[in-house]
């Protein structure tokens, strides 16, 4: 029976993940108990307890789930709109050289500028409310997804395209059956990177100017020198980020079963 459990790849992975995280927490606990750091660093038990406590006890004006929702709200709209626009534009650019020639040089100037660098300008233009955050999430997602969609559209094997043309296929057909499927793995890669970038962007912009959200929590904590608040904030950010990434991977696995992009 034990052998069967150990042989199942899934259980080994999840089991070792649980053990690893438990071991990490024990190490953390040991550090707080046995070293000088325990004077100011809260242990895992305290942190997790505080995390759950904040579901009812507010940080500032809102409880933890409300802050989580604030942050998620900012990401969801910006991300979906930006992804849609970027995928379309990227594929167009990858397929038609003229679009490439017009947009690419502008993109190459904007791309190296990290989205965080846009924050002061965004605040100047859109104020300190949600509008600037939507803009920034849009920007961060857009840059990432566009790049990948473009690479995807261009990755269509010219040999395949040539063969199809020779057999009499028209542009639309080639697009649907060759260009698009070849681009899909790249697009998903872009969507994943875009999601990570968008999440990072939300956190960053909340840290710099906002009145609610997970980024706000850790900046408040910094102002109050409250390490416990920091840890709860980091934990929350990690959990949401992890769930977002895992969901994305799940969607991709479902839709892209014919290609293995590695783990």
């Amino acid at each position: 029976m034990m052998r069967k459990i150990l042989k199942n790849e899934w259980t080994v992975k999840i089991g070792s993940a649980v053990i690893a995280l438990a071991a990490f927490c024990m190490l953390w606990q040991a550090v707080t108990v046995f070293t000088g750091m325990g004077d100011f660093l809260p242990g895992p038990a305290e942190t997790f307890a505080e995390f759950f406590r904040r579901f009812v006890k507010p940080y500032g004006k809102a409880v933890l789930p409300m802050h989580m929702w604030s942050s998620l709200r900012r990401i969801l709209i910006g991300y979906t709109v930006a992804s849609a626009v970027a995928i379309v534009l990227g594929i167009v650019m990858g397929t038609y050289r003229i679009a490439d020639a017009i947009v690419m040089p502008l993109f190459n100037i904007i791309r190296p500028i990290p989205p965080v660098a846009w924050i002061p300008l965004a605040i100047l233009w859109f104020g300190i409310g949600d509008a600037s955050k939507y803009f920034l999430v849009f920007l961060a997602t857009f840059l990432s997804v566009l790049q990948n969609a473009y690479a995807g559209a261009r990755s269509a094997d010219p040999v395949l395209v040539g063969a199809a043309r020779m057999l009499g296929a028209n542009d639309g057909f080639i697009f649907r059956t060759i260009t698009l499927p070849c681009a899909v793995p790249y697009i998903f890669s872009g969507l994943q990177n875009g999601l990570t970038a968008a999440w990072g962007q939300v956190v960053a912009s909340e840290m710099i100017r906002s009145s609610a959200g997970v980024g706000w929590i850790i900046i408040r904590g910094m102002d109050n020198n409250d390490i416990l608040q920091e840890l709860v904030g980091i934990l929350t950010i990690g959990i949401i980020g992890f769930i977002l990434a895992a969901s994305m991977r799940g969607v991709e696995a479902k839709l892209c079963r014919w290609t293995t992009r590695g783990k």
Partner: protein
Amino acid sequence: MEKNSDLKFKVISCCSVIGFIAVWYLCTDILQLTTDITLPGPVKVLHTFIDKFTNKSPDGGTLLQHMWSSLRVALSGYAMGIIIGVPLGILMAWYRPVDLLARPVFDFVKAIPGLAWAPLLIILLGIGFMSKAVTIFVAALTPCVLNAYAGVKQTREVHMWVARTFGATRRQMLFKVAIPTALPHIMTGIRVALGSAWMSIVAAELIASSSGLGYMIQQCRGIYRPDVIIVGMLMIGFIGSVLTWIIGIIERAVVKGQTHDA
């Protein structure tokens, strides 16, 4: 014929950029759709750019001083990230026990944007070089580890077997097969980490710093000087490009002979 159409597209690209600047100029200086405190025109931006090389106001430092401050911190954190991250990734991929224990922790930490550690580090280390450098370190670490890990995992079994039949020790297999196989991935990781590092220094400086390009643009927001902000943004982009270009050269030199799938 190819050359003609290539040239045609290059001309279109140039026109695109010129057109963009023209429209910008049109909107700001001619049609006066915006003011100097929301969007300055290209002429003003150019003027400010040249001026900022020597002028310390309005934020307390010249352009070069800020550049150097940012670069110093970014490169320190980045170097540490590579030095620790790449060997860590290799070890994680090579020794199964380390893999099973470290990987889940890493998968979770990976989801936390590097910047989120900054406030904690500021509490622990105060505002200054160390907290920023460690933030960069954390941001640069993840891509290095993940890519080194993926690279080693790609090692082909047949190559290991070749080494083994020649009598190689485990250690020889690591250095003569696994690591060379991983090299293209490691270089990708280093390149991505650079992007992360550069981005993180800007972000860290936006939060709490007294110098650096991020600090500069943050300060100038408060005093409504978008011309300096745009100059700063362009500089940030420019330096990021130069650094990436340098890494690209190193990458091409190191990865000769191997074709690497992204």
